[in-house]
């Protein structure tokens, strides 16, 4: 192999890409592979790749494996890893940053329930400025089709009734417009925020 070909082979473009495009991605190189984040994660075995392995994979240039992985979608934001990381890496935020980046590129696993929930949640709150619990939960139940939705709703009915009784769930939520006063103002603000982020990250 020629010298330039070798350089090309070993140049890690993916680490640079993560540093530039991923929220908090510039921290990745600071990881010293101690493993305390992986050991501290309450979801433990649910991850195919624990955080420090993801960081190593980024440094090793494994772009498809990382961005297509569902590992970072497993993060529940408990912040145990951030609290214990000896180098103060904002691991939770990096995980969300990676997930978000993979989603934007269309590389995130399509069926991942966290990703789908996040999307429903976002659409819900971004339209009206408030979370409409009823729309959110129905959206979630019926995301796998009508039959499944009915099954899930029945399974959760005691919780639902409890919420109703304590006034935490508005039964008329489906029909009410609801939400904040200045919805178009909110949408403008969100659009602007997105523009700023896109320019900053060079999309």
């Amino acid at each position, binding site marked *: 192999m020629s010298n330039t070909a070798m350089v090309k082979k070993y140049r890690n473009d993916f680490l640079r890409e993560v540093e530039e495009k991923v929220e908090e991605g510039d921290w990745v190189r600071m990881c*010293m*592979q*101690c*493993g*305390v984040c*992986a*050991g*501290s994660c309450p979801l*433990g*075995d649910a991850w195919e*790749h*624990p955080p*420090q*392995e993801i960081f190593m994979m980024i440094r090793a240039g494994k772009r498809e494996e990382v961005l297509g992985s569902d590992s970072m979608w497993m993060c529940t934001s408990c912040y145990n890893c951030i*609290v*214990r990381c*000896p*180098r*103060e890496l904002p691991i939770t935020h990096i995980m969300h940053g990676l997930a978000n980046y993979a989603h934007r590129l269309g590389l995130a696993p399509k069926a991942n329930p966290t990703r789908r929930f996040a999307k429903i949640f976002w659409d819900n709150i971004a339209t009206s400025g408030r979370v409409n619990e009823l729309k959110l939960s129905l959206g979630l139940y019926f995301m796998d089709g009508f039959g499944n939705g009915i099954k899930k709703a029945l399974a959760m009915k005691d919780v639902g009734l409890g919420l109703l009784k304590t006034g935490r769930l508005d039964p008329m939520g489906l029909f009410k417009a609801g939400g904040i006063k200045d919805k178009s103002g909110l949408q403008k603000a969100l659009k602007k925020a997105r523009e700023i982020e896109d320019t900053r990250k060079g999309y």
Partner: protein
Amino acid sequence: MTDVVATNQTILVVGGGISGMTAAIESAECGKDVILVERNPSLGGRVSQLYRYFPKLCKPSCGQEINQRRIMAHPRVRVLTMTEVDKIEGEAGNYSVTLKTAPRYVNEKCTACGDCAEAISAEVDDPHNFNMKKHKAAYLPTNMAAPQRYVLDPSIIGTEDAEKARAACKYDAIDLDMQEESLSLNVGAVIWATGFKPYDAAKIQPYGYDRFDNVVTNMEFERMMDPFGPTGGKLLRPSDGKEAKKIAFIQCAGSRDRNHLKHCSRFCCMASLKQTTYLTEAYGDDDDASATIYYIDIRAIDRFEDFYQKVKDDKKVSFIKSKVANITQDRESKNPILHGVNTEGYHRYDDEYDLVVLAVGMDPEVKADEIGCKVAANTSGFIDAHADDAGCGIFGAGCATDALDVNRAVQNSTAASLKAIQVINKTAGAEA
């Protein structure tokens, strides 16, 4: 005490550990007058709390005895124990210093016969053994104590025990009327050698040092091996006094961690490697004895790689590349259980042990910016030996400047001694 004479030709050494002793003896042997002040009732510092020291695994008494003899015999060194610096003002070549000496209640007539201790019943915590043990309130600080002189704990002054101790002394060495004394001196240069303190293990919350009996520090482990220590030289578990055979060592307990100590404490990898050899000493080739070291990376700094290799060849010792996430305790057995992920293969573990030793790192005993007089601090609070010290005649030595092993602390102290001598010589030149 009135016979302490000092001038701007005198070097004051603060701290009588291996570093302060080295700086004092080096300066004196170069012909300078030295006053060495030590807060404890005896010289020796932390080294006197070790069971053996690497790399040669000799007992600390070995190197220490020679140094103590040289110091005690040298006409140019004046040792003041139980003494601290109260105030320090001035500049290179001309410092005024106020010292404060706590009452020992025992004068220089003491022969260390021990009759006073025999005569009394009161017991107090023994800080030399990290309070894992009590000793009589009339005590010799350590067997190696220099000076070899007893101390009365202030808590018994005014009690019957104090009178009993005095009555038992055949040499008229007990003086119950001693008071705290203050002494003002003029010195030309200062060597600051107040050393380190082990990082407070209780601050590392996930390791439960304050909750679990069988989680100890590396310093406490040293004391356990000492025949005169709290367990009579046996590795006994604090919870039930049973022999601890399956032992884990956790490296970087506090060190290299921005939540605790930013720096690498350097000596702790070697200290744990050394401590695995204590298992062989205690149990021979008993197959039940094992040591497991959890580490980020082993830093057998400098010339110690061969020591590491030797320990690696020991069948009793294994290594797991992982910073332990947390420790829990088995309720019945009180066995500590280590949880984490082995980064070589990303395997999760929940490993149970008889005893866990936390390899805690070093914090400065006195923070550099509390000394005053332009002494610069580094980011961990040690004296910054590289700062622009123009005009400053206070020089850090040993672990007051950084986390160091004995070898480096001694080198560093010789350098500090040379710097202090230069200040003294300049002052003398200017006056001539």
